[in-house]
């Protein structure tokens, strides 16, 4: 293999952390949540993998995945329509013995036969709740250099508010790491509640394919569910688990408020380049025309995708594709998803409108910065 190929295959878990934002995943899953004006959450990890020469990617879906299948199609936009490898979507009942999964152990046990038949030496695993332009090549290189059995990516940050609100085990698990000076993981904390800066796991792993098959096989027989809690954590003495520190920009979605904030943060040029400059991010093409600002439009501090028609006023907002802001309408501090229409003289503030929402003429709707209003897909106000 020439060195553009990283000898790794990718596995993505698109349903992880769905429960943190029940509103947005009503008609979809974490991976297909719209983000940053023209993307879906999965675009970031998928593009990162492709940009790092990982061209064999499996997406193990659990439920509510129609929107994701529609988005990914044959994987062409990510250059994953390949004869060898390419994009594979695994539905829960893909094989006779498979069933919907709870944790990664079950998910991976459903595709063990596939894993066995591949030729790549390494496996890269990731969720989709983090929008990040991630350098998997660097992580794989460090994994090899450190001689570790498993590498886990983490960043240093305070735990987001969203995770404190979760009931133990009810809304998915999160992990922090205790590392020694060689960044070997000595302890994994499950759902910690302490404040301050943590080594916060990004739940992204590099592991040898053979080792992964062994670990999953054993764990599944023992009825274990979660890879970090049940497989790695008890075996930290035996397995060399290495922490890969990520210092770049990332946007982690942990609840609807952080979804709002992480979108808004991209209005800052520094954050925007942090997320998009390292390597291109690919997404499904919609063939919209350029966005049109008609006379009388006022736009200040916004990010907008193509296909919008703006005739009213809009400020501090993120506009997805095909949003229409009619004459006299005022939009401030909002996230308006695809094909939202704000009719004449309507006023909206701190609003997250899902796809195809219409705010009819003259209506006024306001959320607050700590609690943005959410309007579900297709609704007319």
């Amino acid at each position, binding site marked *: 293999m020439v060195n553009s190929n990283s000898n790794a295959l990718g596995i993505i878990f698109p349903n992880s952390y769905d429960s943190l934002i029940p509103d947005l995943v009503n008609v979809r899953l974490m991976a297909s949540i719209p983000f*940053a004006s023209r993307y879906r959450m999965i675009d970031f990890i998928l593009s990162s993998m492709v940009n790092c020469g990982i061209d064999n990617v499996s997406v193990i879906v659990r439920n509510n995945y129609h929107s994701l299948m529609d988005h990914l199609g044959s994987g062409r936009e990510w250059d994953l329509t390949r004869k060898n490898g390419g994009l594979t979507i695994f539905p829960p009942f893909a094989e006779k013995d498979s069933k919907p999964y709870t944790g990664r152990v079950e998910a991976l046990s459903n595709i063990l036969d596939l894993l066995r038949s591949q030729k790549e030496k390494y496996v890269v695993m990731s969720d989709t709740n983090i929008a990040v332009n991630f350098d998997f090549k660097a992580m794989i290189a460090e994994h090899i250099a450190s001689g570790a059995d498993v590498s886990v990516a983490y960043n240093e940050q305070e735990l987001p508010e969203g995770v404190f609100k979760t009931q133990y085990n009810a809304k998915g698990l999160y992990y922090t790491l205790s590392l020694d000076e060689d960044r070997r993981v000595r302890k994994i904390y499950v759902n910690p509640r302490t404040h301050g800066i943590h080594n916060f796991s990004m739940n992204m792993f590099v592991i040898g394919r053979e080792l992964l098959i062994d670990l999953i096989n054993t764990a599944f027989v023992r009825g274990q569910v979660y890879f970090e809690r049940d497989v790695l954590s008890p075996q930290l003495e035996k397995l060399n688990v290495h922490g890969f520190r990520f210092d770049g920009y990332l946007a982690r979605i942990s609840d609807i408020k952080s979804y709002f904030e992480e979108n808004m943060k991209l209005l800052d040029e520094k954050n925007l380049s942090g997320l998009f400059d390292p390597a291109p991010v690919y997404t499904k093409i919609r063939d919209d025309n*350029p966005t049109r600002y008609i006379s009388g439009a006022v736009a200040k501090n916004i*990010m*907008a*995708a*193509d296909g919008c*028609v703006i005739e009213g006023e809009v400020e501090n907002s993120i506009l997805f594709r095909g949003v229409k802001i009619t004459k006299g309408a005022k939009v401030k501090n909002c996230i308006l998803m695809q094909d939202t229409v704000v009719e004449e003289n309507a006023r909206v503030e701190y609003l997250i409108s899902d796809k195809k929402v219409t705010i009819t003429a003259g209506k006024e709707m306001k959320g607050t910065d700590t609690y943005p209003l959410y309007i579900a897909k297709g609704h007319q106000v």
Partner: protein
Amino acid sequence: MAKEMIAMLLAGGQGSRLYALTQKLAKPAVPFGGKYRIIDFPLSNCVNSGIDTVGILTQYQPLVLNEYIGNGQPWDLDRLHGGVHVLPPYQQASGSDWYKGTANAIYQNLSFIERYNPQYVIILSGDQICKQDYSDFLKFHKEKGAEFSVAVMEVPWEEAPRFGLMVTDETDRITEFQEKPKNPKSNLASMGIYIFNWDILKKYLIEDEEDPQSENDFGNNIIPNLLRDNRKMYAYHFSGYWKDVGTISSLWEANMEVLDPEHSGINLFDDDWKIYSRNSGMTGHRISASAVVENSMITDGCRVEGTVKHSILYAGVQVAEGAVIEDAVVMGGSVIKSGAVVKHCIIAENVVIGENAVVGAMPEGETNGVATIGPGVYIGDGAKIGPNAMISTNVKDGEEQW
């Protein structure tokens, strides 16, 4: 498997009257309307009309065009049978030849058409901005029992002498063809879009090739020959938006018309007739708090901190704080630095306009030129570029060009 109709798209035009814009690319590859290239229009028309096989005849500076077309996927023209094919002149056992004229270009690719054995062939021009349903045109052709049809536009009588004109009887049958006549007998101008029955096209192309006097041109040779033989020839009236963007001023004007779809008739915001293009893959555009944007079109990847009025910004254009852009067409990847004033002009791709530079001017009395900056040019800080200038090499700081 035979096709009912395939399209042959003439895209070899140099577009020499676009000067700096077409030095390195063929006219059909010239960017248009914010995120398109001219060729997106005929290609999208084909797909929207149900034509899935298109031969693109290239000759002049084909590299950009070839890469842009690729496998045709953005237009849904990557097909198992048919799809889009770029057809440059090629070497044959009998020798090789450049395309001598429009008819010769098709003649040299008769074997391409033969592979699909169509009933009809539509000949398209790759340098016009037009939204047209070719299936409607074909329906007309069939209803008339025609052997040849040409799409025509009514033009004002005083402009008629600039066009090739079709003189018709009351059934739209063509009785005479006048090429740029002094005394026009008709105001029906040929749009250069023809439907031929395949057997007729083949017969006349072969005959034309055998005539050493021929210029091998559809307008000058093939159409007169068809008339001579009293073939069944009809004129199909088209009344939508149509523009040959052959000159700097017409290209600028057509771009400006995109900003006013309500009056100009060129509506790119049409879900039933989408214009497809190869995507830039950039993020959504950013309008900063310091920006003023009025009556403009802006696409992915743009960063606007300055003032943009009545202008079109293509993918990835950056407008720094304090820069002013008005009545301008700014193509992909260009950077306008702070304090620069850019008016009534066309800025090609990847141009840098330095700080406080002035490019073009709003029309005033007699001077209404559209200043043009060619691709990749660097205009130095404080430089001045007059409204009639055509710049294709770098301009140093503080220098003036008129």
